[in-house]
Every structure is written in structure tokens, then in C-alpha cells.
């Protein structure tokens, strides 16, 4: 990606997974805080399910008690596996926070990987309260805990970052005074797409950077309209 510089990629936690089709899938790994929220929600759900099961099965005597322990086992170890292999690839807690689990190649998670990452919780949990898992997540750019490292999985935000797709506000098209390189064209068009959400003063302030070069004959109070016009011209309305 030419538009995304090296400097930005050092700060940015976005993760590029290249596909066989030669494009990059941009994944946004989720850090400690959202995953903690998701874990707490799941913990609460599991707790209430277990309480409900105990209340219900308690009346069945020894058989019910045994079944309750089996349910506790399933809730502790296989609850995440079942949900991660389901359609949303996320436990209810993760879904609530807006997270999902994928392979670090961008592919949907496989059963083997899901079981691996969830059984290795036993290692992440050590020495207590997921200390090793949290350390591993804080250490790494892609926020993998130990189980994610072994399974090759990533916890990412499910939704793509939605940019407002609004086209620039209407203005008479206007050819730029000089030929513009691709990056400058993209910057002007992107700015024009944001004009509707900027205050007038801010839009004018930003336009001031480009207008002297792109449209030197524009009037002082007319800079925003002139640059939007250039954007329309660049988009192809001529």
C-alpha cells in the first residue's frame, strides 16, 4: 500500500493477511481491554447457566449432580469452542463487544485451532488470573495470547471500520491548475468526502494547504467550493 507509510505502520495495529488472490485483508486485532470485557460477559453467562442447571438438576439427586459437573466441564472448556465454530465465530461475550476469531491467515477458524487455543487457556491462566496471557498480549503487536500463538489465531474486530461513503457536496467541476500525482488526488478527494462533517472553519483551513497550488485563482472566501470542484473533476465529472 503506497498510501500507508512505514511510520504509520509502526503505530498502527492493523494486520495484513495476504490472500491467494493477491489482495490484503486488513484485520484489526483486539487488545486486552475489549477481550477482558468479552471474557467477563462470558463468565457471567456461564455462571448463570450453571446456576440454572444446578437448580434444575439438583432435584434429580446423584444423577443430576453428576450431570451438573459434566455441564460445568463443558462450560469451562468447550463453551468457547462450540461458539467459535458457529456462524459468528465468536462467543456471546465476544459478539457483544464486536469481536470475532479468525486464523492469522484471514481464513475462518478451524476446529483444531479453536480447540488448541481454548485448551491452552490452562497455560495462559498461569500463574493466576490470565497473567501470562495478558503479558503475551501486551508484548505483541497483534495481541495474541499464548493459545493464539500455538493455534495461529487472531481475535479481531468483526466490523470493518465504516468510513462515511458520502460523495462530495455539489459544486461546479473545476480542472486543477497543475497535473496532480495519484496520492495528492486521493488526498483531495478524501478531504472532499469529509467536508460535510467538518466545520466551515476547519474545512477552509485544510483547503488553504492545497488551493494555492491547485486553484491559485480562487477567491479567498471561495476556497472550499473551489477545492470541492477540483475533487469533482478528479472523480470524473467534467
Amino acid at each position, binding site marked *: 500500500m503506497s498510501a500507508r507509510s512505514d511510520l504509520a505502520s509502526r503505530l498502527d495495529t492493523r494486520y495484513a493477511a495476504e490472500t491467494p*488472490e493477491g489482495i490484503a485483508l*486488513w484485520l484489526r486485532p483486539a487488545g486486552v481491554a475489549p477481550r477482558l470485557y468479552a471474557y467477563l460477559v462470558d463468565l457471567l453467562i456461564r455462571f448463570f447457566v450453571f446456576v440454572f442447571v444446578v437448580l434444575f438438576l439438583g432435584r434429580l439427586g446423584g444423577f443430576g449432580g453428576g450431570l451438573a459437573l459434566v455441564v460445568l466441564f463443558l462450560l469451562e*472448556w468447550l463453551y468457547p469452542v462450540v461458539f467459535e465454530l458457529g*456462524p459468528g465465530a465468536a462467543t456471546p461475550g465476544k459478539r457483544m463487544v464486536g469481536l470475532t476469531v479468525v486464523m492469522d491467515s484471514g481464513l475462518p477458524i478451524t476446529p483444531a485451532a479453536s480447540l488448541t487455543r481454548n485448551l491452552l487457556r490452562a497455560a495462559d491462566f498461569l500463574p493466576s488470573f490470565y497473567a501470562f496471557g495478558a503479558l503475551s498480549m501486551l508484548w505483541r503487536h497483534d495481541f495474541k495470547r499464548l493459545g493464539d500463538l500455538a493455534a*495461529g489465531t487472531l481475535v479481531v474486530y468483526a466490523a470493518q471500520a465504516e468510513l462515511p461513503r458520502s460523495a462530495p457536496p455539489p459544486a461546479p467541476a473545476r480542472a486543477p491548475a497543475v497535473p496532480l500525482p495519484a496520492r495528492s488526488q*486521493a488526498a483531495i*478527494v478524501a478531504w472532499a*468526502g469529509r467536508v460535510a462533517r467538518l466545520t466551515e472553519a476547519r474545512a477552509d483551513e485544510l483547503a488553504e494547504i492545497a488551493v494555492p497550488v491547485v486553484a491559485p485563482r480562487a477567491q479567498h472566501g471561495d476556497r472550499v467550493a473551489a477545492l470541492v470542484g477540483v475533487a469533482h473533476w478528479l*472523480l470524473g465529472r467534467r
Partner: protein
Amino acid sequence: MTPLQFETAHAALWQELEAELGAVPKRKRGSQPVDRARVAALYRAACEHLAVAESRAYPVWLIERLETLTARGHQRIYRETDFGLDKLARLFVVDFPAAVRAHRVYVLIALLAFAGPLAVIGVLSYLDPGFILSLHDAGMVAEYERMYGDADGPIGRRSAGSDWSMFGFYIFNNLRIAFQCFAGGLFFGIGSLYYLAANGAVAGSLAGYLTWRGFGETFYSFVVTHGAFELTGVVLAGAAGLALGHALLAPGRRSRLAALEDAARRAIVIVYGMIAMFVVAAAFEAFWSSARWVAPQVKFGVGGACWFVVFVYFVFQGRSRRDPASSR
């Protein structure tokens, strides 16, 4: 080509792909079946458009739309849909025993790490009956005597729990121990060795002490049947963990992470089978091993048969006759 021309030229195609991607999960019986080849072709075209749009620095919203579209298409097209029974059958007929054989060095080391402390602590507890007090407190020892002694009631139970509640307890408790043996491998294998040795030591102290007390027949007749699955299962869990640890310690020419991922992918097959073994073990332990009405001799007979079956299963099951490499 300007961005607008590009968009008008291909918008119809993108809309078709968007519609196809939205339609698949909600598909019901009787509705129009999805043409998979068409979806794949549309997806490839969208990928191409994305690459072109990026290289020409087209407006952000256009690229954003194509990125969303291709990401959704990618998730849909590469989704694994085959979780069938065939795979499950193949796991137990071929994959699991073959994976155990492929990890035989790890299995051997895990066996030593488990059986070594078991034997040493067992002999020490047998020779010096006071030794067990350095591992368990006196109250626990008295409890063990009652559990495995000549008292009435099922063998191996602290309180008079029913068979079913003990089944649940064995699943919950023993599989947790097995998972710890596996996960401990992430710490360069040390965790696996520790859990194996610690559990071996506890089992050894019990065996040695109870033998000295003269409860040997009760205790061994209790252990023999489910031990065939449970003890092997613990060793296999530890072996899977050791495979992870070895990949981290000696990754060869790959990065440690790549070696770990690869080792985990192979070792998880053992864990699948190991879980099934523990379920079988829990059933035996709860409903059969604890029964006082079964004569110890019968239990020894059945237990011996179980050990034999487990041994034969891991040595011979799932070998390919034609493939000389796997029958070495």
C-alpha cells in the same frame, strides 16, 4: 479511467456479489440454490478491482467498499463446511493412533516422567509407611484408608456419592489435569514434565502405602480397568505438551512460532483422542471399578483385557498396508 467511470462500469457486478453473499446464510429449502462457481468468479473479479483501485489511489470510500466486499467473500468462500461423521470415524480409525505412533519418542519421555516418580515414591511409601505423611496430611491418609480399605460402600469415594455424580466428578477433575499436562508444554515442556511427575508421585504414594497396609487387592482391582484409559490418557496429554515444548526449544530452521504452530497442529489430534479416552475411563471408574459386588479376579481379567486392547490399538490400528513409511 476516472473513479466515476470505474464505479459505473463495475457497480452491477459488486451489487450482484453483495446480494449473493447476503443470501447464502438465509437460504431456505426450495429457494434458488446459490451458484458457487458464479460467486467465486465474482469474488475474483472484485479482488482484481480492489487491486486496481488501490494502485490508482481511487477514493477511500471506493476502496473501503471493495475491501469489505472481498473480506466477506473470502470468509464465505474459504469456510470449512465438512464436519461430518466420516472425519470423526477417520480420527479414531486412523489419525489418532497414527499420531500417537508419530509422537512415540514424546510418549516414551512422558511415560518416564510419569512412571519414574510413581515407582520411586511407590517403593519409598511401601518401605517406610511414614513417608506418605510428607506428601499428604494425616487426615487425608485416614480418608484414603477408608476409601480403599475393607469398609462397605463403593471403592474410591470420599463420601457416599452416587455412581452418576462420581462420573461427573471424574470427567470434570481428570480432564482438567490432562489439559494442564498438555498446556504446560508451552513453557518449554517443563510444565508438562512437572504435572506428569506430580500426578505420578501422588499415585505412587497411594499405591505404595495401601500395599503396605494390605489393601493391595482392593486398590489394584479398583485401578486396573480404568487405569488402562486414564493413565495412558495422562501420558498422551503430557506427550502432546512435550511436542509443543520441543518445537519451542529446538525449532530447527523455522522460527519458534512457526515450529510451535506446526507442532500444535499435529499434537492436537492426540488431544482429541485423549479426551475420548478420559470419558471412557470416567465411565469405567464410576460404574465398574468402584463396584464391590464384582470379584477382584473378574476386575483383573477385564482390566487386563482393556490394557491389551489399548496396547494393540496404539501399536497396530490405522497402519496402511501399502505405505511402507508408516509401518516401519
